[in-house]
């Protein structure tokens, strides 16, 4: 059985990739950390971004640890450093 993870991109990342979201498939247990590695492999330009900035990651709209295990249908978001307010 193939599982699907939906990944969302925002702000600088979305602009860099020219992409707001995409789906990743996987067959067995996947952690957030492994997913980030796969995303970085697919999009080398993202590796630079995440290496130099304080990024957060959300799973189903909750900020999550890189060790979190993902499940089918999860929504993962790459959150560039926040700058709301004024």
């Amino acid at each position, binding site marked *: 059985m193939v599982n699907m993870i939906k990944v969302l991109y925002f702000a600088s990342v979305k602009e860099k990739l020219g992409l707001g979201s995409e789906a990743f498939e996987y067959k067995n247990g996947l952690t957030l950390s492994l997913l980030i590695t796969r995303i970085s492999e697919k999009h080398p330009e993202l590796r630079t971004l995440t290496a130099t900035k304080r990024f957060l990651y959300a799973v189903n709209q909750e900020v999550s640890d890189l060790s979190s295990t993902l499940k089918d249908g999860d929504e993962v978001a790459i959150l*560039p450093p926040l700058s709301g307010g004024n």
Partner: protein
Amino acid sequence: MIKLQLADFNIEEETLALRGPFRNTGAAVVFLGTARDFSKGKDIKGLEFEYYPGMAEKSLERLRDRTLKEFDVLDVGIIHRFGKIEIAENIVLIIVVSQHRKEAFKACEFCIDELKRSVPIWKKEFTVDGDVWVEDHP
């Protein structure tokens, strides 16, 4: 009261609405964040805000709940605009109503500090040198 909106807001109307049910309100402290024409050495021509739909609203609700729990205040309202914003326009409004002013000041400052830290909203600055997503905490 939590709003993420494209439209501008009116401080008088929003404050009155939040105070409406309370006859024991002695104080309201309001924070208004507006678009400056200058930031960290750069001239700014305009701004744009993007947010994570769903998560941003949840974060704002959680921030409001937390403020109500941690401070002795009657109500908290938070409005943040998104989309393109011109220089001198309103960006964010935080209203805290309380019986006493000390708590209202503390709660209002906490709220804007936390909003900047924890709510998934991003700001882009349009400058003469190009457009930049702001990725550091002010």
